[in-house]
């Protein structure tokens, strides 16, 4: 089984630029520079690479909206979204700490494809080790001539900077991220105009997830068909999957896109810890709908998880065991979302704290039967189309599915006037 993204991962001592070059590193930059930017874009589009940050949009297609040619506005920007703050998600940390040069190589190739001039790695504050590694790797890439002016004599120039955030989930939302980079509050922007047309400082900008960029060098080196062939499903490539919760071996693994939930939990995570059973699964981070034991054979790709009523999200799943109270679990999630709401739009700013308080009162045994209707109502009013960005609808996904699958638990709390767990 090929594992292009993680084959060189070394958490103790990641490859230096020289060591990476000896293993073929940065060959994708050399190859891309011999192609036209449009050819690189087309190759990525044909590979059917879909964004790994959660939404799953075709990456090459996303790039194709950037104005090109002599009349295009400059500077154009490219940003790696390394804000990873979705609860339960720890896949980008692996790529950042284990092989920083792969990200930088992917960013350079992507920047060439859209003819960007300036690039940023937007890294969350907590990733201290990654910050040091990225800083060092960027310096090495400048030294070797892969960054800076007239890269490898191509006439094209690219600058790259590390930007560390100061802690806010919303910084991961791509337009809010651009505001944060501009020194503003991380509230989202209205779309259109899309960032590809008017992004950072009003210039054409591409934002992609770390894992997305890490796929790019391999696609350019090996071709679109090879990338599609890595997968077990319609969605191309490999994916970094992860499992956390009371399993025997929590962790993250690179596997063909489309492995089943069962394979992940039973084989790779070593099954549930002694004495615990699976109650529910959030397949792709905190803002995805629950799956249950009835969904163990669902394939972890964008389409299959959607068909099962959830979302692939970040592909890092959280397992809820049978000794964990679903009401307490969902309360914890809503506490997070209420805290991290940016406050820009009313349904989310006002609604999420209500949801959190209702759940807390149910958990404490002070709930009323009508509260379940109230929660249901919020799940609709804070759902897609009613808020400015996807934070609130994302928050409603685990709530609405918990009300569906674990309704008994909510009712028991209310009738017994307390938490039975």
């Amino acid at each position, binding site marked *: 089984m090929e594992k292009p993204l993680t084959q060189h991962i070394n958490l103790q001592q990641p490859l230096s630029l020289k060591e990476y070059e000896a293993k073929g590193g940065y060959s994708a930059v050399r190859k891309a520079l011999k192609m036209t930017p449009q050819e690189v874009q087309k190759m990525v589009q044909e590979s059917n690479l879909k964004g790994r940050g959660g939404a799953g949009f075709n990456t090459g297609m996303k790039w194709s909206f950037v104005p090109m040619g002599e009349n295009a506005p400059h500077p154009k920007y490219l940003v790696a979204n390394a804000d*990873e*703050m*979705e*609860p*339960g*998600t*720890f896949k*980008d*940390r692996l790529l950042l700490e284990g092989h920083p040069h792969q990200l930088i190589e992917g960013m350079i190739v992507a920047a060439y494809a859209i003819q960007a001039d300036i690039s940023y790695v937007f890294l*969350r*504050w*907590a*990733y*201290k*080790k990654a910050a040091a590694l990225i800083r060092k790797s960027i310096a090495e890439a400048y030294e070797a001539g892969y960054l800076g002016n007239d890269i490898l004599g191509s006439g094209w120039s690219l600058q790259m*900077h590390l930007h560390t*955030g*100061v*802690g*806010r*989930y919303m910084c991961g939302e791509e337009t809010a991220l651009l505001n*944060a*980079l*501009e*020194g*503003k*509050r*991380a509230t989202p922007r209205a779309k259109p105009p899309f960032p590809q047309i008017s992004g950072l*400082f009003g210039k054409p900008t591409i934002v992609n997830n770390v894992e997305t960029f890490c796929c790019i060098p391999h696609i350019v080196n090996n071709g679109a068909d090879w990338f599609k062939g890595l997968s077990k499903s319609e969605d191309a490539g490999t994916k970094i999957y*992860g*499992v*956390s*919760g*009371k399993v025997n071996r*929590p*962790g*993250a693994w690179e596997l063909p896109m489309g492995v089943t939930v069962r394979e992940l939990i039973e084989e790779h995570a070593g099954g549930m810890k002694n004495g615990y059973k699976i109650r529910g699964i*959030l397949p792709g981070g*905190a803002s995805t709908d629950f799956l249950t034991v009835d969904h163990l054979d669902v394939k972890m790709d964008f389409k299959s998880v959607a068909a099962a009523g959830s979302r692939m999200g970040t592909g*890092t799943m*959280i*397992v*809820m*065991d049978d000794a*964990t109270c679903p009401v*307490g*679990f969902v309360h*914890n*999630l809503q*506490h*997070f979302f209420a*805290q*991290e709401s*940016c406050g820009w739009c009313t349904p989310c700013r006002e609604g999420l704290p209500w949801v959190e308080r209702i759940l807390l009162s149910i958990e404490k045994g002070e709930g009323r039967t009508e509260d379940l209707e109230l929660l249901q109502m919020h799940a609709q009013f804070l759902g897609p189309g009613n808020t400015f960005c996807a934070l609130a609808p994302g928050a409603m996904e685990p709530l609405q599915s918990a009300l569906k699958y674990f309704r008994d638990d909510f009712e028991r709390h209310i009738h017994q006037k307390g938490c039975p767990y």
Partner: protein
Amino acid sequence: MLSESEIHAIDHEVSLVPHKKAAVIEALKVVQQHHGWVSDEKLEEVAAYLDMSPAEVDSVATFYNLIFRKPVGRHVILLCDSISCYVMGYKKLYEALHEHLHIKFGETTPDGRFTLLPNACLGCCDHAPALMVGEDLYRDVQVQDLENILAQYK
């Protein structure tokens, strides 16, 4: 007054962006690095230096979780209270920290040694529960580990 080294660091950040205002988060980070937190006085100085109003700077400062607008202890403990750490028992760690240090979330020990804060997912959910002290990350933390961890910070 902003010190020479603060001004030097802020000037560098300003040089990287198209207009001064865009460096405000970086400027606040610089101040915090020098003083541990951002006082009203410092905030006003940053505002004056970047030609912004204090209210505008404060709207940014108060938005971000890790810009401290109140004094903090010498060491800030960030305890992950998100979902995987919830499942793996962060509450036990909280109770033990509370018992040991006699502070709740948001409080600082009277000797100014520790501030305890909740933090959203630290991105190591496969090693939950997790916490950071200052810039150091601790994973798979058990209650019995806490004493040794804390002892390293004077």
